[in-house]
Every structure is written in structure tokens, then in C-alpha cells.
């Protein structure tokens, strides 16, 4: 008997990100899957120990390419916690709006990836186009399409330009008007349902044991969302729900993503309505080159679009962090859960399952 060892990635059209899964295959069934990360390992946390607190901002956003904003946020929150800085009210609102926009953009990227994996070019193209509209907003706000470096300790870098809120609303309405199209061609398409239902299924017990977060656990009916549990920024100011599903397969995860996206859009509208119209957006911080943060350690967490994002940060009172360690949601998803979820599946579904867990390779490798 000859066993087949197949490589899914790194150079593979079905692989989003630089990641590799080694599959032991018999026929078209996967007997064993081994995640093989490290293609993007740059030693971020080591590099950050050699840079000053503010210099690290350009670095941290590169930990996750798809949604750098939450990583910026978590790092800023960590620094704030260590240094004991408070964020002004308007700054909090802007942070929330900005992060929710990033969440929508990231979900649209995920939609592109999933649709692309099924060979569903049409939806993929639409999703990518709509994401681009959001990136235009980011560009106007921050001057960059992808890596914005907008959030800083104590708030955000600059205030919204005039009329920006209206632009956000307009753009979101434009995307929202296409949601029925997405529903009819993608989410409610019988063939998509056939394809996605029942694959990559994990039970609640397994999910808890393997540290699933984000919509991987929301798709199992558990309302585990840091925005609710431990509200940060302005999430406790408005009223919103955590959408959940029951089945825990790729289909329910995808629907959880869609619901999350719609919920985010509604939340942005509410936040814009409730936002104080004037005020500071950041608190002043010392000269970044001489900024020493007192001795201490902190663990902060927030809900990125992939799930719980954490940062363990240690300061020894110097110019640089002593140790930073990011707890990224893709880490458990991509290394532990994926290996379990792939066993017994069809080789046609590897990419789909991977995307449905929202695995982003740079987050794992850091």
C-alpha cells in the first residue's frame, strides 16, 4: 500500500496566505493533516524588543495583513494600560467605528477567499470590489490603503475629516444595497449550501478544548465575544447583539460571518449617531524617543474579526518593551483545530475549511 502525501500550499491557488498543510491522503479522504507554518516567521516579538514603544506601531500592524487595525488597537491598549493613559470620549468612538469598518472589510476579504475557493468568481469579484470601497475610506482617513497606523496610545492619530461620517454612511449603504444579491447568489444558493454544509464540523466540547474563538465558537451557539464580555473603546455605549449559529460547520461559520458583518454595519450607524460631535481624539503622550513606561505587565484583549485577540506585554521600565506576545485567533484555529477538523474530510474541501476558520498565516507565524 502506498500512502499519498499531498501538499496544500504554500504555492497553491487554493491557499490564502503563505501557509502549508501536509495531508496524508487515501483516495480522496484525508487521513491525517499536519499544519506546517513558519513561512512568514519574521520574529516580530523579538524585533519589537529592540524598538521604542512608538516605533513598534509600523511593525505591529503587519502582523495581520487583512485587518491590521485590531492589532494596532490591541498594542495601543496594552501601552495605555501599562502607562495608565485614558482615551478621550470621541477618540473611543472613532476607534470603534474604525475597527468595525475594518471588520467589515476583513469579512468581505474572507468572503472573497471563500467564494474564490469554490470557484465562485462572480461573488469573489463583487466582494473584493466592495472591500475596495472601504479601503478608499481608510485611504482618505489615514493616507494608506492597507497599513494605516491610525491608532496611537491615547486615542487616534487625527480626527475625522469634515463630512467623513456621511461618506461612511453612504458607502455602507451602497454595500448594504447589494446584500440581497449576495444572499441570493451566495448564502442562499442551494449549491453553496450543499458544498458548505457538514464540512469541517467540530463539536462544542472539542472547540472549547482546543481554544476556538470568534465565529468558530459563535457558530456553535456560544456568545463568546470580547466586545460584550469586557467592553473596550465605545462598545458599551451602543446596543448590539452577538449573532450565533448552531451547527458548527463551515456553512454556519460563513453565515455567522455574514450576520456579524451586518451587525457591524448597524453598529457603525448607531455609533455615528451617538458620537460626540466635538472633542479631543487623543491624549498627549511624552516624546516618543524618551518615553519610558513604568515597570509592569499586562494582558489586554479585544475582539478582532477572527476572534479573541490578546496581548501579553511586559515592561521593565525601559525605552523598549521587555517582552510582547500576541495571542492571535488564527493560532489555535490554524494549528490545532484545523488539523483536527480536516481529518476524514474530502480533499476538495481543504481550502474551504481553512477559510471558514479564517486562518491568516502571518498571524500564526508573526
Amino acid at each position, binding site marked *: 500500500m502506498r500512502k499519498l502525501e499531498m501538499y496544500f500550499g504554500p504555492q497553491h491557488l487554493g491557499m490564502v496566505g503563505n501557509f502549508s498543510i501536509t495531508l496524508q491522503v487515501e483516495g480522496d479522504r484525508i487521513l491525517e493533516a499536519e499544519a506546517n507554518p513558519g513561512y512568514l516567521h519574521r520574529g516580530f516579538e523579538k524585533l519589537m524588543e529592540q524598538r521604542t514603544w512608538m516605533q513598534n506601531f509600523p511593525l505591529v500592524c503587519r502582523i495581520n495583513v487583512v485587518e491590521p487595525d485590531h492589532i494596532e488597537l490591541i498594542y495601543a491598549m496594552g501601552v495605555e494600560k501599562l502607562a495608565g493613559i485614558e482615551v478621550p470620549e470621541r477618540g473611543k468612538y472613532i476607534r470603534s467605528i474604525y475597527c468595525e469598518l475594518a471588520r467589515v472589510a476583513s469579512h468581505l476579504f474572507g468572503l472573497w477567499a471563500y467564494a474564490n475557493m469554490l470557484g465562485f468568481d462572480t461573488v469573489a469579484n463583487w466582494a473584493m470590489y466592495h472591500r475596495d470601497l472601504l479601503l478608499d475610506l481608510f485611504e482618505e482617513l489615514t493616507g494608506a490603503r492597507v497599513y494605516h497606523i491610525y491608532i496611537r496610545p491615547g486615542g487616534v492619530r487625527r480626527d475625522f475629516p469634515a463630512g467623513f461620517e456621511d461618506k461612511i454612511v453612504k458607502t455602507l449603504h451602497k454595500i448594504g444595497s447589494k446584500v440581497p444579491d449576495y444572499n441570493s447568489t451566495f448564502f442562499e444558493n442551494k449549491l453553496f449550501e450543499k458544498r458548505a454544509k457538514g464540512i469541517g464540523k467540530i463539536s462544542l466540547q472539542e472547540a472549547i*478544548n482546543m481554544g476556538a474563538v470568534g465565529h468558530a465558537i459563535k457558530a456553535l451557539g456560544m456568545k463568546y465575544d470580547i466586545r460584550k464580555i469586557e467592553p473596550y473603546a465605545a462598545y458599551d455605549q451602543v446596543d448590539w447583539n452577538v449573532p450565533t449559529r448552531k451547527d458548527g460547520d463551515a456553512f454556519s461559520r460563513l453565515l455567522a460571518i455574514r450576520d456579524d458583518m451586518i451587525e457591524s454595519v448597524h453598529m457603525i450607524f448607531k455609533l455615528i449617531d451617538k458620537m460626540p460631535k466635538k472633542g479631543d481624539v487623543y491624549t498627549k503622550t511624552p516624546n516618543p524617543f524618551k518615553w519610558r513606561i513604568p515597570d509592569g505587565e499586562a*494582558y489586554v484583549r479585544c475582539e478582532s474579526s477572527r476572534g*479573541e485577540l490578546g496581548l501579553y506585554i511586559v515592561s521593565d521600565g525601559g525605552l523598549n518593551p521587555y517582552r510582547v506576545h500576541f495571542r492571535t485567533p488564527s*493560532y489555535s484555529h490554524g*494549528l*490545532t483545530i484545523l488539523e483536527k477538523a480536516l481529518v476524514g474530510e474530502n480533499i476538495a474541501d481543504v481550502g474551504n475549511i481553512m477559510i471558514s476558520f479564517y486562518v491568516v498565516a502571518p498571524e500564526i507565524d508573526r
Partner: protein
Amino acid sequence: MKKLKDKIEDLFDNVIINDFYQNRIFVKTNKESVVSLLNYLKELGYDHLALVSCVDHVEENEFELVYILSAYIHNEHENQEKTNIIIKTRISREKAKFTSIINLFENAEPYEREIFELFGVDFVGHPRLKPLFLEINYETPPFRKDFDTRKFVDDFFANIPIIEEIEDEK
């Protein structure tokens, strides 16, 4: 907050608990009682292992292993607070060795592999302690404080020659 703190203090010796900031409990303990403490907390409902980390305290010649727990389901009646419990323990830096906690939390597996690779801490009982991220072997595990990346870069990458064009002989 009081209740959990008291409970831990009652059951375990050698623990130092300080709530540094709001919503976080930092527990310092010796390495023997880490596993039993984790086990106890898991049974208490803190079933989500968020992170396993390691800090290199090079002056004290010790590694500090950090386990961060939280709960999936928050239930006020069963004394679960919306909090992260951070358990820290120190191990020796030479021939660093610790017990694996895979049996308790499955997702500790890649974290331990990572720490093994980047710090050189050996986890006893781990089924596949092989390199996770790195392709080549570094003499010192790169995340240790005594590994100087800038010196390594100068030694390793700067020494590789630039391609010199060979002129056509014909």
C-alpha cells in the same frame, strides 16, 4: 474577585496573588503546583487557555512561563468572574524543562512547540517537539535575550556575496 483569590490561596501554598489592574488576577506560583492549579481552574470553569508565553529573565537566569486563562461561559452564581487569570512560574534557564499541559488544554500544543523552538524549553510529555517556524538551526534559540539579531544578521546575511555577472566569453 475576592472569592476566587481566596479560594486559590486556601488550596495552594506558595502562591502570590496580586490583582495588578482591574479584571486581571496575576498568580505567581512554584513550578510544582502549576499543573494542579491549572487543573483546578479548569474544573472551576476557566476552560479557555488564551496564551502560553515565556519571558526570558536573563539577569536572574530564569525563564518565566505564563499561562493565561479565561472562561467561555460567565456565570456569576458559580463564582466566575469576567476575568483573565495569569499564572506565572519560574524555571531554570539552563537545561530548561517543564511539564507539558496538553492533556489539560489541547491548544497548548503549538504554544509549547513554539516556546521549545524559540526559547529552548523542553516540554516533557509533548508528542511532537519538532521545529514549528524555523527552517535553519540557530546556535542560540532566537528569542532568548542573549541572541543578538543585529549581530546575527551582520554575520549571516551580509556574508553572502552579491552575484557577479560573468561576461560572455564568446
